[in-house]
């Protein structure tokens, strides 16, 4: 963010890692302060002392140093120039920081979140004499090829009647309109990250956020404006799943928050997104993405701020009437940052050393998601998908449990599936989606009337398989009746062909709902063929080793999958039921 100091000045009393105690400073909670030039935020007041969490490394800072209060809460710069950016946890653009301090991140760098000097072509959509209220759109800027940036009357400004409005090239600092009450509107405004942006009303979640991932869309769908959690031990594919959602979900804008994770993962996104083409717009995915990167070795306090920075940017685009998806990877690191600060503040710890307010902070954060009617009356949404990294892959720990109490979709990653290289390693028996019901109508109307029947059928087969496998583990496969073994075989097709999806295969990485439907339908057809074959006297071995099964499995890798799928089904049918293929 852009910083100006106007407020009071004090002196450093104590330095302990990211916690600095100041004296002689007048401050309110959450005011941003500059500690010897390093940015920090007031997190506590104790007698005449002020407790500040500093967003940068405090080595070399000593008692007696200067602390200045800006009198402002931590805010983000909003306006054209956000899309395609990569920021640190407090919205400083990393490319600008590289220019200033080189390949390694320096300290005390000030950089506004958006380019204040760049000129944008502004086109008004209202004219002189029109009356506008907070949140209304007054004009547009083509920010990238796919994102039209709608310029809003900031929600924290009074509305009025337009006295003057200009068209043409302007920087974000220039005045583009003047209201009758004297308010000058610019393309830039600030918003405090810890305060949710206002909207008119929340709407029910009845439109799916399509992700192109079969197990997610078909079995455990998330709604636009919904919330989901992906917990899983290391190596189970949290990050890959998050990347897949960022790549293929049908949102207008993606905000990807890399919170306390690996540096190379952010690099991967940075190198990959400009190359990948969005199937809906035909333009690079980067043209709709914003990245917030606070890697695990960057200062811990800024990690705490990074999720708020991310969601505030998302809300801003929501207010323009866009569907925005926020990917937070990982919320556990955020919780740990809270724990670390809480420990330094010597607060009484709750479970596992986490602060007692962990649950309420998580709830507040996820509650900022939703599909809403904006102040201007259009519809926008913020969907939030949070990765959770439970220690030891144990879901009973506080962050996972408190998250599950709030979110509506649970995608449980499973270490065992990952070890078998079944990806996405989402456990189909453990996961759930509370949106499945409310989204049924959408799938019926937009894909096929029997969508939810097929879905239920698949879930039943998988559940039945799990029951049978318990018996198999005790007495062996031979003890099962033939029709039970056919069921196991069908379940195998569901798992290995339908549920398993290759993120790195150029075709299989994204699956349209139509293709999902065709695949489900084809497996259902195989099911019927197998049972018929069994009735006709074929042995279970013949069914299990029927020729054509590998063609069926590979059909999904083809651009023209339908043809291959149909051919494979016909081949299997001919082999089991005779000539009439």
């Amino acid at each position, binding site marked *: 963010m852009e910083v100006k100091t106007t407020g009071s000045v004090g002196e450093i009393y104590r330095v302990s890692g990211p916690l600095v105690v100041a004296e002689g400073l007048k401050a309110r909670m959450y005011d941003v302060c500059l500690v010897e030039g390093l940015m920090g935020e007031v997190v506590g007041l104790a007698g005449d002392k002020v407790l500040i969490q500093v967003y940068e490394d405090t080595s070399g800072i000593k008692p007696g140093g200067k602390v200045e209060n800006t009198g402002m809460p931590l805010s983000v710069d909003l306006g054209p120039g956000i899309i395609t950016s990569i920021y640190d946890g407090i919205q400083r653009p990393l490319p600008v920081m590289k220019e200033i301090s080189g390949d390694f991140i320096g300290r005390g760098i000030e950089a506004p979140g958006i380019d204040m000097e760049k000129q944008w072509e502004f086109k008004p959509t209202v004219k002189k004499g029109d009356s506008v209220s907070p949140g209304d759109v007054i004009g547009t800027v083509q920010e990238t090829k796919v994102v039209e940036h709608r310029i809003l009357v900031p929600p924290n400004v009074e509305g009025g009647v337009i006295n003057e409005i200009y068209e043409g090239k302007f920087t974000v600092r220039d005045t583009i309109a003047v209201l009758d009450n004297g308010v000058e509107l610019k393309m830039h405004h600030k918003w405090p990250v810890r305060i949710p942006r206002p909207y008119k009303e929340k709407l029910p979640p009845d439109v799916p956020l399509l992700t192109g991932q079969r197990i997610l869309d078909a079995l455990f769908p998330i709604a636009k404006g919904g919330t989901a959690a992906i917990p899983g031990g290391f190596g189970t594919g949290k990050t890959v799943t998050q990347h897949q959602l960022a790549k293929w979900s049908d949102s207008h804008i993606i905000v990807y928050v890399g919170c306390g994770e690996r540096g190379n993962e952010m690099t991967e996104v940075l190198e990959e997104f400009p190359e990948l083409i969005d199937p809906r717009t035909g333009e690079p995915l980067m043209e709709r993405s914003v990245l917030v990167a606070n890697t695990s070795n960057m200062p811990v306090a800024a990690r705490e701020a990074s999720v708020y920075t991310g969601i505030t940017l998302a809300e801003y685009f929501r207010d323009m009437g866009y569907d925005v998806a926020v990917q937070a990877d990982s919320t556990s690191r955020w919780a*740990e940052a809270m724990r670390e600060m809480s*420990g330094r503040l010597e607060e009484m710890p709750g479970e596992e050393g986490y602060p007692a307010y962990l649950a309420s902070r998580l709830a507040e954060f996820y509650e900022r998601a939703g599909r809403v009617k904006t102040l201007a009356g259009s519809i926008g949404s913020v969907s939030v998908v949070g990765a959770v990294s439970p220690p030891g892959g144990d879901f009973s720990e506080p962050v996972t449990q408190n998250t599950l109490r709030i979110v509506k979709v649970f995608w449980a990653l499973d270490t065992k599936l990952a070890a078998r290289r079944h990806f996405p390693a989402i456990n189909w028996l453990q996961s759930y989606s509370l949106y499945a019901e409310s989204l049924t109508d959408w799938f019926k109307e937009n894909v096929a009337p029997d969508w939810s029947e097929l879905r239920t059928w698949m879930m039943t087969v998988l559940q039945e398989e799990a029951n049978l496998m318990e018996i198999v583990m005790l007495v062996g*496969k031979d003890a099962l009746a033939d029709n039970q073994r056919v069921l196991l075989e069908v379940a195998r097709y569901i798992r290995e062909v339908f549920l398993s999806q290759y993120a790195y295969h150029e075709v299989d990485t994204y699956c349209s709902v139509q293709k999902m439907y065709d695949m489900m339908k084809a497996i259902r057809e195989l099911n019927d063929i197998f049972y018929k074959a069994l009735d006709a006297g074929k042995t279970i071995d013949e069914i299990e080793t029927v020729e054509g099964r590998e063609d069926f499995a590979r059909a999904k890798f083809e651009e023209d999958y339908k043809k291959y799928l149909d051919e494979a089904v016909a081949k299997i049918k001919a082999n089991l039921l005779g000539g009439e293929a």
Partner: protein
Amino acid sequence: MKEYRTIRDVAGPLIFVEKTEPVSYGELVLITLPDGTTRRGQVLDSAKDIVVVQSFEGTRGIDKSSAVRFTGDIVKLACSKDMMGRILSGSGEPIDGGPKIIPEERLPIIGSAINPYARTYPREFIQTGISAIDGMNTLVRGQKLPIFSGSGLPHNDIALQIARQAKVRGTGEEFAVIFAAMGITYEEAHYFIKDFERTGALERAVIFLNLANDPAIERLITPRMALTAAEYLAYEYDYHILVILTDFTNYCEALREISAAREEVPGRRGYPGYMYTDLATNYERAGRIRGRKGSITQFPVLTMPADDITHPIPDLTGYITEGQIVLSRELHAKGIYPPINVLPSLSRLMKEGIGEGLTRDDHVQWNDQMYAAYAEGVDLRGLVAIVGEEALSEKDRRFLKFADEFERRWLQQGRYEDRDIEYTLDLGWELLSMLPEGDLVKIERKFIEKYHPAYRKKAAGEAAEAA
């Protein structure tokens, strides 16, 4: 430099000093004992009335009349190209009897974070000559890949074999090795040094030694010293550096000791809540930077207490590093070297480092198939233990056989056996040919026709006939 004789308390490795001038957070401290010896320490907490200092070399012999000096400087390492071939203590002082190192530069050991925007994604395949790594958990230049081991398992042999054999094919560039010992025994350290000397690798190595009988707190700076040296050599002199850090379990114990002495609220199993961040500041110092030639590849070794992979040390490590190589006591007991259990092992950067033009075009699908087949075989072993082999179908028995052969022929190799990637892949194909073609669902037809031994034999036969 002002001297203070105002020590108020000494608690474990911590010293509390009163009535000082303002002192910087993180400042280097020198403590002179009554007998004239000097200890080094660092400021952990600095307030107007009291300063908390952690002593790297322990607090034995420190009394209230000891003199404390604040140097006004943070802890730095004297860096020079002449470090190559030298053996240094855990805090960077030469202990090989050689001359002092004349610094070209003195660098703070707390490195700054690499700007993610300045990184470049690691993609260059490193051939280690070990099938289990090259084939199924491929290492790339700039990766951090830990070995999760247990007491008594041959992690040192594996680390050494990698140090000996690692190369990027077709470049002729050799790795320089930085070896940091944290709390390991003299015998283990000696084993490493002897091997380096014997193979001549010592000339291209820098060794930092903090042995089991050295002060525990010094371990907290040893890896940072080693990584500072690595960064200097990689980014100033374009070296490709392989950093071996062993054993991180001892490092974490030291971290817990400091945390307990400071009476901090403990996280899981008494380890401090910030252990994740602390480990990350070490592990994240691996990688490649755009526009710079050198690279840092990290091989941290840790022993899992009671072989428990969910213990906080391996657990937090796994969340930061780009995969893990997991050793198995069961395979070791079967006499298999290297006892790498490929199922829980993983290399996250593998996908970008393998395939056509990098290793071989069939590698990706070959890997998926090998995993799936081995996992199936291992699962069936559990079943056989309960129902006996007779209850299995013909198909299942083949997978069982596959898993046995996989371990005996493909995994098993000599400590000095340097396999190239083609050999590793072809040997895998030989095993896969034990299974019916219809079960190789993860491999496309074109690769089966190109690499499956049955087709190769046929093609060879036809070629012979044509001739």
